[in-house]
Every structure is written in structure tokens, then in C-alpha cells.
């Protein structure tokens, strides 16, 4: 099992959700986060004064998937979240030790 964590542009969240639904991914967790990468921050102007905003709003999507699905999930996220402009975000994949469905007590791939 793998945990796929992607940080994406907020307006791409629906596209990512739809792309993953087509792969029969049954659930995901999304969090509003702030961060920066190569894009750095940006500046906002209020009453003529420039304010540097170092952390930009992004959405963090977390999806737990079985090993055989992971490459297609990563690919789908990359396709759906891509605009080609700086600031599109990143995808991280890491090993997951255990998964439990709280209601039934199922574990492993059955819990996903």
C-alpha cells in the first residue's frame, strides 16, 4: 500500500477528484494548506503598499492506494493538476504500514 500525497493548485482539486474517480479510487482527503516552492510567494498591493506573501494557498490531497494502482494514480494526478505554469505543485509517494476501516475492522487493501 502506498500513500500518495499531492500538493496542487486549489482550482485543480475537482479535476483531480474526477480523474481519480475514473480509476476507482474510493476516497481521498483534501486539506487547505499554504506553502511555496520554486514559484516563491507573490506580492499584493493594498493602499499602494506592497505586501510580500511568502506562503501561497494550495490544496493537499492524500490518497491511500494499493500497490498496483499507484503509478496510474500518480499519472492521473499529474495530468489533471497540470496547467504548465509555475506553481502546479508536487506529488509524493510513500510506503504505508497499515490501513484499518474503522466500521468493520477490515485491514490492508480491503480497507482502502
Amino acid at each position, binding site marked *: 500500500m502506498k500513500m500518495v500525497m499531492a500538493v496542487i493548485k486549489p482550482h485543480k482539486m475537482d479535476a483531480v477528484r474526477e480523474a481519480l474517480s475514473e480509476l476507482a479510487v474510493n476516497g481521498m482527503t483534501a486539506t487547505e494548506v499554504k506553502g511555496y516552492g520554486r514559484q516563491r510567494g507573490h506580492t499584493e*498591493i*493594498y*493602499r499602494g503598499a506592497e505586501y510580500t506573501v511568502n506562503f501561497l494557498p494550495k490544496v493537499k490531497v492524500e490518497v491511500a492506494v494499493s500497490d498496483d494502482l499507484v503509478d496510474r494514480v500518480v499519472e492521473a494526478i499529474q495530468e489533471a493538476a497540470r496547467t504548465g505554469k509555475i506553481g502546479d505543485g508536487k506529488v509524493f509517494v510513500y510506503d504505508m504500514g497499515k490501513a484499518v476501516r474503522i466500521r468493520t475492522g477490515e485491514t490492508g487493501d480491503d480497507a482502502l
Partner: protein
Amino acid sequence: MLTGKKNHVVPVLAGLGAMLWPGLAAAADGLNSGDTAWILVSTALVLFMTLPGLALFYAGLVRSGAVLSVLMHCFAICCVVSVLWLAVGYSLAFSDGGYANAFIGGLDKAFLAGVTTDSLSGTVPELLFFMFQMTFAIITPALIVGAYPERVKFSAVLFFSAVWLLVVYVPVTHWVWGGGWLAEMGVRDFAGGIVVHVTAGISALVFASMLGSRRGFPDHVRPPHNPGITVTGAAMLWVGWFGFNAGSALAADGNAAMAMLVTHISAATASLAWAAVEWIKFGRPSVIGIVTGMVAGLATITPAAGFVGPVGALIIGLVSGIVCQWMTAWIKHRIKIDDSLDVFAVHGVGGILGTLMVSFLALESFQGLGLAEGMGVGDHLWVQTVGVVSVAAWSAVASFVIIKIASAIFGLRVAEEDEIEGLDITAHGERSYDF
């Protein structure tokens, strides 16, 4: 003008009327129920400007950890001023001061002694005049809240506001509206360009420079945390300002209608001017910009509202939208005083501009309502300048001394870690947003 009006009502047939319809008996005493109704409404409108209008306007402009503290400042100032206004403020501003009348009123009406439900001020109950004027006394120190947010001690705010009311606002009100020396000279301040905006603007600048900047100023302060709240408050200010300016006619008549009209036109023009300049300079017109322009236009028309006409209002709006914006940048980036929410640049500069421009925009050639009898444009300009300069000087000196005393007794600034944590939690133990 806000000075108490003389009783013009001629009691023709009043006796007969009183017999036919008891309600008319009041007319025989000089009370005008139309005027009274309008000033009752205006009083509510002007209080609405401070609570919640100004409070929300400011709350949206600060960082998210200091929202409640700004609301608290405005609310507490309202309460403190109300009590002081009843105790001695009203009396010192509007009663006769005897040999010292040029500078300050007397204590005859302290705690409204001798003022009954039958007492009149012009054509309205004196109790109503007291209330109407109280709402002006409330908003003026509340305007200064914009100079010191995110870092000031609450005790210093209370002390400063209370003493400032009695030492700056009350005497200046007496000079201009209470029959004092500026009134004798014929100064024109319809609704408070000098009394409200010059006093608050200058004092804000003094406070901000003595208190010091917010941490990280000018390059690393937090941007306004919620411009939407600011727009909500600004919209309330616009509506409330109808009571402020048109109410200052102290009558429900054509003068009040014209005051309302020019107030509205100036606000609209200044909003457009501010946004247009931003559009040209920065490529985008901002929401905070357009509403700040509105406040500038309203502050600038305030001294002129009952004296100028529609064309004057257009000119005042245009000038204020451009000049106040320029001053905002100048104070923060050149002079580097962290008058955080631009009280001086918007209110102070606006009040000064309007007070001076009324000298010639009152001319009939600008559709104005005319100059005072026996006075030319030059005479007006001289008197208006004396008014602005003397009140600005008094506001600066008195504020300096009050802040020195506040600093010695309470200290002005919170500890740095409290400023970082945010005044909401550290000064009041509450938070506005709990995620």
C-alpha cells in the same frame, strides 16, 4: 452649521392651533417635529458609523490576531466617551464659559443639570442635540484607533481617549461650534472637517510616531486579513455619513438635502478617482482602494457639505481621491510613520483640504450656497487657514503631552511576544477565528 440655531418660528395662530389640536402646542414653544424627527434619525445614523461601521472597516484592515482588539477599542471608546460627555463634555463644549468663553464652555450643564424634556436647542430638544453631538464625540477618538492597532496597550488607549476627549475634542468643539474664538472669527466647518477630522488626523500621526511601528514595518507587516469586512464597514460609513453631514443642518430642510447630495457625490467621485489612479499605477483597481477613496471623499466634503453645491462636490471628490492616496504612500514610505490604517492621510488631509476648499467652492459660480455676508474668498481662506493651523497645533501639542503621561503611567506598547501572538489573545483572552 452645528451651532445652536435661534428660534425662528413665529407663533402665528399658535394659540388657536393649540386649542384645536393639542399637538401643535409644541410649535408655540419653537419645537419643530420635522426637524426633531430627522435629528433623531441622524443621531442613530452617526452612532451606526462608529458601531459597527468604523469598527468593521478597521477590523478588516488588521491582521487576523488583532481583529477583536480593534473592535474592542472602538466599542470601549464609545462607552467611555458617552459617560464623559454626560459628566462634563457637553457642558464644556456647548454651555457659556463666561469670561473664558472664547476657549472653553462652563460647567453649568454638567450631568445635564437644568436640562429638561422641554429644553430646546434651536428647534429640537436640547436632549436630542446632546445625543447628536455625543455621537460625533464618540467617532472622533475612535478614528484614532487606526493609528495604533496590533501593538498598543489597551490601558493606554482608554486613558488617551478619555483625556484627549476633554483636552482636545471638547475645547475645539467649543471654539468652532460652541461660540468660541474661531466661531467669532467666522470659521466654516459644517459637520466637522476641523473638529473631527483635523483633530483626529493630526493626533493619529503624533500617536503613531510616538508609539513606533508595527513589527516588520514597512516591508514585512501582514496585509489586511479580510477586505470583505472592510467593505462592509465602509458601506455602513457611507450610509451613516448622511446623518453626519445632512444631520448637521440641524433641520429637515433644503440645506440638509443639499448636504446629503454633495456628501454622496463627493464619496462617489473620490472612490472612482482613487480606483482609477490605482488602475493606472498598479494595473489593477483594488476593492480596498475604492472604499478608502470613499472615506477620503466623505471626510473632505464634511466641512463643506452645507456650503457647496454639486459641482463643488465633484471637485472635492476628485481632489481628495488623488491627494489622499498620494499622502497615504508619502506618510508610510517617505516619512515612514506607521499610521497603520492611514488616519492622517485620509481623514486629516481630507479634513484640511475640505476646510480650505470651502473658501472658494462656496461661491455661486461653483453652484455653491454663497460666501458669508461681508466676507470675500480671501477673508474666508484666511479664517479657514487660521482654524486648521491652530487646531492642528493644539491637537499635536496636547496629544504629545497626553501620550507622554500615558507612557509614564501605563506604558504604550505591549511586549514583543504579545504583539507576535496577537492582541486578541494576549490583551483580551479571546480569538476571532478558531479553526
